């Protein structure tokens, strides 16, 4: 298993697709920063028009913490989409090139092969979110500097710079669970559909439906609390005035359970099905 995992990581490192994925993430960060630089101040002025006379803010509100918060919002759609496309490509390109077959012509067990793919995907995802976090924190602080954070979540909330930084960091860590879920779901869809274009379409559809269902009322408390579309907002809870750590832990634990379930389903299907129909 160790060898298989090392091979999978080696392949990820050598594939151009990996670097396109990383580049897309960095371009996204740059785009958010440029947009914020040119349009952010006007937006902030409109948002804070009524309260600017009553409150005194420390420093410029268009600062690194706000930029990091804006980048965090890419966890709703952009980062999961990039992840699902790249990760599903790790398997669909192998189906297309016939290398899945080629590997299994050797004394390699199917379940170990696919499990190592899931593990390599998890490592890649954690690294990608880590790179996103590092790139965002460093570039935002270099170009915008620190300051208080203002967020609009059921109402306006303000956090001092140090407090904001802790909350942003926690939100990124929580975001890892969300990114992992989508990456594993993407790989499972690749196991199911094998063909890259179909997998990408289904992945995008999955992402859209999941995001839409987040605010949908199922009328049953269990579904409203524990169905996976309801668990992809855990990072946002770090921006409530009193952080509900218990809710965050439960959401992340259940989402991680779903991640394992998706992975096990993929492993089972890969093991059970003919490699090529």
């Amino acid at each position, binding site marked *: 298993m160790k060898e298989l995992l090392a091979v999978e990581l080696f392949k990820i490192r050598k594939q*151009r697709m990996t670097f396109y994925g990383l580049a897309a993430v960095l371009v996204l960060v740059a785009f958010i920063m440029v947009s914020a630089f040119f349009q952010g101040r006007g937006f902030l002025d409109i948002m804070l028009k009524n309260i600017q006379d009553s409150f005194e803010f420390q420093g410029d509100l268009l600062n690194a913490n706000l930029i990091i918060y804006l980048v965090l919002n890419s966890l709703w759609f952009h980062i999961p989409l990039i992840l699902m496309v790249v990760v599903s490509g790790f398997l669909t390109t192998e189906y297309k090139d016939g290398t899945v*077959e080629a590997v299994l012509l050797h004394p390699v067990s199917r379940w170990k092969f696919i499990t190592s793919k899931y593990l390599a995907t998890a490592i890649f995802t954690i690294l990608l979110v880590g790179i996103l976090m590092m790139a965002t924190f460093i570039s935002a602080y270099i170009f915008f500097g620190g300051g208080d954070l203002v967020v609009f979540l059921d109402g306006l909330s303000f956090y001092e710079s140090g407090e904001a930084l802790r909350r942003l960091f926690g939100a990124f860590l929580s975001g890892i669970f969300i990114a992992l879920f989508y990456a594993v779901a993407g790989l499972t869809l690749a196991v199911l559909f094998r063909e890259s274009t179909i997998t990408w379409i289904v992945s995008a559809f999955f992402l859209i439906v999941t995001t839409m269902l987040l605010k949908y009322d199922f009328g049953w408390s269990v579904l409203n609390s524990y169905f996976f579309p309801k668990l992809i907002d855990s990072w946002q809870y770090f921006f409530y005035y009193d952080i509900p750590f218990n809710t965050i832990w439960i959401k992340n634990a259940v989402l991680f359970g779903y991640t394992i379930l998706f992975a096990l389903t993929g492993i089972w299907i890969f093991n059970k099905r*003919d490699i*090529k129909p």
Partner: protein
Amino acid sequence: MILHVDKINKSFGSRQVLKSVSLSCDKGKVNGLIGPNGAGKSTLFRIIFDLIRPDSGTVSVCSTSNKPLGGFVDKPALYGYLSARDNLRVFARLQKIDLRIEHYKELMELVGLDALRDDPVKYYSTGMKQRLGLAVSLMNDPECIILDEPFSGLDPFGNRSFQNLIRELARTKNIAVLIASHNLYDLGDLCDELYIANQGEIVRQGNATDLFHMASISYRIYGDLFFQSNTLKQLGAEISEGNALVIPGKEGIEAVICNIIEEGCSVSACIPQTSLELLLQKEFP
């Protein structure tokens, strides 16, 4: 016997692609599986490699080695973005083999590839990919190699040298070889035993020379002055400049050649024309 396939049946939906297929391979022998496209050759190979499961029947591999079977199905699948060495490294590591530089060079030399070339294999020619695919198959010393259409895309020189390589592997390393092809002439000189597949069935099997002899009812004779031969005209031969295609009938090809030489023709060569259509029939006419 290293490999024995017994009464394999396989259907995809309502279409039965393999019907009670049986075959076996011995060490040091080259076995051929000939059949037209869609005869079920690749499906059979995938079943042997356990890539797909048969509806019924068994595949027995009599081996205690780490890697009883090696080979490729359809075409050698390689990681196009990796170099030859990285490809071999990946496949070696999957099998927990430490691919040392000496072993790498030895493998590349064996299959006739340049060990110093380090560009991605997507830039390799078809023949070079076939050779690299064979190198991947030969890692970890399999006792039987199974190659699906290994000659497709090769030029005549590449084809000949690849055939020599396979023959040498069987003879010197005592490896059992099973090769599938839809081209009769690829396997004619190479195989000891032949299996003829058609529409999912093995319709015929036996010694390659005997089968080819039985299926050779016409001959192409090369030489000169064939237009003046009454014998060829009487046999309804297709005569063109420098050669004639003739079906000799009961008297045999030897008698035909004697007659046309007596008629003043010169003969430089006579090549039997093996009919795949005839081989694909369950009974010879």
